[in-house]
């Protein structure tokens, strides 16, 4: 590959038009003292065939694909229909900038408008933005947004929150003189209601709930919403496995004021952590506090429907430091992929897929807990992941399973010392019965 479209002859003629003799002279405004006097110390150039070899060699160094994996906890290995890759990789979707010129960006704009609609439908809320960086920053933006709405410096987050999300919330809030308080979980693995009630005796802007939470347990949003609203705070729900929304009641219908989350499950490959897709929806009333871009419908001079970026007085390019967020480039193409994915699954396909995940996880749970010494840790209802308790430290069991080329689940002990004998096990539609049974058999051997 070679991308430069200027020939040597062009160079000469162009320099002469500019009135210069050499390319050097183009840089005379850069003081000599800071000009680089040597070649950069970089490898390359590699020809295209060599690049392929280089990356094939790196991919070979990854041996993850030789393992049967039951990892989840915020990143999920779902099947991606071919049509998603095929359509999203079109140059017209990959290579434009943010749609600042709506008349020649209706493709991107209409797709995002559809994305916003799908997110509203899934979350049961009125409006949604065009995307955020990921689920973790979405959670941070959600609590900051609630703070802008409510003005109380106290933010309540759950201790069963995805640890990545928690870390990011702490990073974001640290500099802003906010108090972040953690609400413990109960035996069901859900947020402990009495602790929440207790905590809400002091005014807070928001209660953040993850559901299904980091333990895979579905929270009792209805009750939590009542408790939260009674105390005058906003209820923000964050979700890292939005596939669950194919079955579960929309959080907006159960009282959530803001719903945010990670959209990776919707057609984005695992990709070692990125790019992923933050999404956010809220009630109409909070639209002026919503961070990120928003696409709206309008008409052209001939009255034809069209779409534009709108409500940009919330954004930094207009409002500078007074913007609702500093986000500029978001995850547009990931949102496009999610749109194609969700529209391909459609009403039936999404419900069915959620049901398949639910059923397979139930089967796995049953089989695994039929092994003596292995039990379910929490009593709350789960979707496609669950916490198991083992007779000894999970790290040891995990290592033995790894010997058998199985990654049996995520350790919880580091973040939750009380759960050092536990692991978070995730099942998706990609786990055939045979794979689940292999896990069960291997675990039996390990525990023998």
């Amino acid at each position, binding site marked *: 590959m070679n991308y*430069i479209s200027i020939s040597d002859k062009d160079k000469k003629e162009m320099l002469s038009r500019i009135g210069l003799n050499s390319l050097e002279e183009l840089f005379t405004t850069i003081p000599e003292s800071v000009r680089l006097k040597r070649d*950069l110390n970089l490898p*390359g*150039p590699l020809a295209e065939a060599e690049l392929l070899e280089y990356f094939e060699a790196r991919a070979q160094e990854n041996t993850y694909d030789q393992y049967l994996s039951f990892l989840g906890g915020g990143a999920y290995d779902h099947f991606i229909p071919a049509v998603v890759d095929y359509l999203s990789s079109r140059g017209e979707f990959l290579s434009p900038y943010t749609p600042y010129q709506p008349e020649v960006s209706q493709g991107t704009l209409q797709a995002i408008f559809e994305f916003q609609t799908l997110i509203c439908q899934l979350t049961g809320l009125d409006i949604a933005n065009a995307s955020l960086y990921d689920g973790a920053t979405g959670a941070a933006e959600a609590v900051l947004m609630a703070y802008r709405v409510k003005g109380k410096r106290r933010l309540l987050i759950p201790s069963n929150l995805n640890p990545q999300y928690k870390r990011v919330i702490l990073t974001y809030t640290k500099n802003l003189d906010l108090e972040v308080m953690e609400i413990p979980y109960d035996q069901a693995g859900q947020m402990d209601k009495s602790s929440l009630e207790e905590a809400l005796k002091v005014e807070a802007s928001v209660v953040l709930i993850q559901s299904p939470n980091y333990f895979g347990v579905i929270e009792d949003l209805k009750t939590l919403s009542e408790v939260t609203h009674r105390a005058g705070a906003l209820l923000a729900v964050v979700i890292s496995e939005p596939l669950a929304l194919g079955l579960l009641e929309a959080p907006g219908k159960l009282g959530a004021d803001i719903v945010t989350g990670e959209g990776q499950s919707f057609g984005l490959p695992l990709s070692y952590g990125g790019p992923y897709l933050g999404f956010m929806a809220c009630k109409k009333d909070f639209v002026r506090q919503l961070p990120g871009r928003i696409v709206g419908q309008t008409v052209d001079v001939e009255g034809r429907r069209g779409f534009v970026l709108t409500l940009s007085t919330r954004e930094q390019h207009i409002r500078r430091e007074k913007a609702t967020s500093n986000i500029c480039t978001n995850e547009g193409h990931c949102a496009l992929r999610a749109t194609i994915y969700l529209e391909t699954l459609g009403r039936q396909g999404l419900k069915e897929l959620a049901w398949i995940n639910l059923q397979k996880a139930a089967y796995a749970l049953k089989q695994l807990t039929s092994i003596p010494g292995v039990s379910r840790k929490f009593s709350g209802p789960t979707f496609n992941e669950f916490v198991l308790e083992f007779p000894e430290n999970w790290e040891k069991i995990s290592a033995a399973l790894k010997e058998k080329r199985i990654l049996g689940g995520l350790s919880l002990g580091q973040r939750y010392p009380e759960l050092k004998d536990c692991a978070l096990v995730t099942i998706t539609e990609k786990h055939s019965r045979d794979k689940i049974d292999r896990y069960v058999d291997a675990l039996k051997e390990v525990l023998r």
Partner: protein
Amino acid sequence: MINLVREPLIFEISSPGKRAINWPELDVPETKGLLSEVPIREDLEDFPEVSETEITRHFTRLSQMNYCVDFGFYPLGSCTMKYNPKINEKVAAMPGFTLVHPLAPESLVQGNLRIMKTLEKLLAEITGMDAVTLQPAAGAHGELTGMMLIRAHHVAQGHPRKYVLVPDSAHGTNPSSAHICGYTVKEIKSNEKGTVSVEELVKVMDEEVAALMLTNPNTLGIFESDICQIADIVHAKGGFLYMDGANLNALAGIARPGEMKVDVLHLNLHKTFSTPHGGGGPGSGPVAVKKILSPYLPVPVIEEKEGYYYLDYQRPQSIGQVRSFYGQFLVIIKALSYILSLGPKGIREMAEIAVLNSNYLRKSLEGIYHLKYDTPTLHECVFSDKFQKEYGVSNLDISKRLLDYGLHPPTMSFPLVVHGALMIEPTETESRRDLDMFIEAMKAIDREAKENPELLTSAPHVTYVRRLDEVQAARNPVLRWEQKK
């Protein structure tokens, strides 16, 4: 083709019972009564129901409504809309990368860690800095991360300080990022050359100022020649020099921020390093720092010991994590592929041709469009609509008219220091033929402005939709489709 057909929303094509996907039969025994205590969705009502045929047509048609780099010249200033090489897409799509779970044990992902560490090192060399984090998801996220590092250092010194200085020509994310980091923004005015005034800086710089955020070359395309002196002034008061590196395309291989006494900067891989912008992301905004700030870098930090790579979370001074996991991994692959494909000579050539192309455009349009600052520029130049305003024609009208010529317009929304700005950045991947076509179009539009201004104020004429009513969109927001009842 597309002009002929009005493409409905997918919801308007939907009809009950259609589907585009089938799942395999459930291969485990069904468990009854699951979720019986949980509120269940009655239905995904109004969710689309279409066939794969309809999906493909819908998105094929939508795609054709987009202008894009693969289609043509895209001189959007400050956005570095260069061509995105296809081999980079291919390597980033290798299953050996896309199928890997981010929480996989380190020993099973040595290839990924090596890729990230390699890119960190190459970016450090290109920028002349000491350490790099790849974690930030885009440029603004990099700014925020960089400011957090600065703040962490000041906090460690006992006082976070209060202010951050931002030139009036800066991109809006600069003040916004400083604000979200808990700082109050003080704007500093540009001088008549379009650069930061050293005198003014001296006046405002004190020990309550945490940092100066400088874009270099700045958003006018002008190199801040006083940068070393500026750095000295800031440093003298214990502040840091933050550089917005979005314009690194002008400098790569030519001069290094590290040598300009910059303490921290972010890069936009989706600009300088040619990863596609995707119609609004994903980006990737690595942050490069001098040693003094490296203890604060976000966790995890990728470390290497005797050829073994691992993730280090044990960094007590770290600001923490700014996003899930480690960064925009697939974007990182594309950027690394790009740098390796160019090599040291190619990186330098990239800057040279980018600056050549920009100066060629500038020279060709000088006199026809107004140039507020006649300071020499590097990779971009900012004209204004001052001449054309006499005929009642604005930068917006000029831009919309360019659409009729099949070309993408320049940036108009900033820098705020130029009223009616037309900020043009051609990049190095453009051909002379494309530059000349743009020049000819701009000249023709200038003539049209004089002869028939209405043609411009009513433009565009031949696009899929004509000029859209942005005021109505904001005043009467319709932000989602809803079933007509």
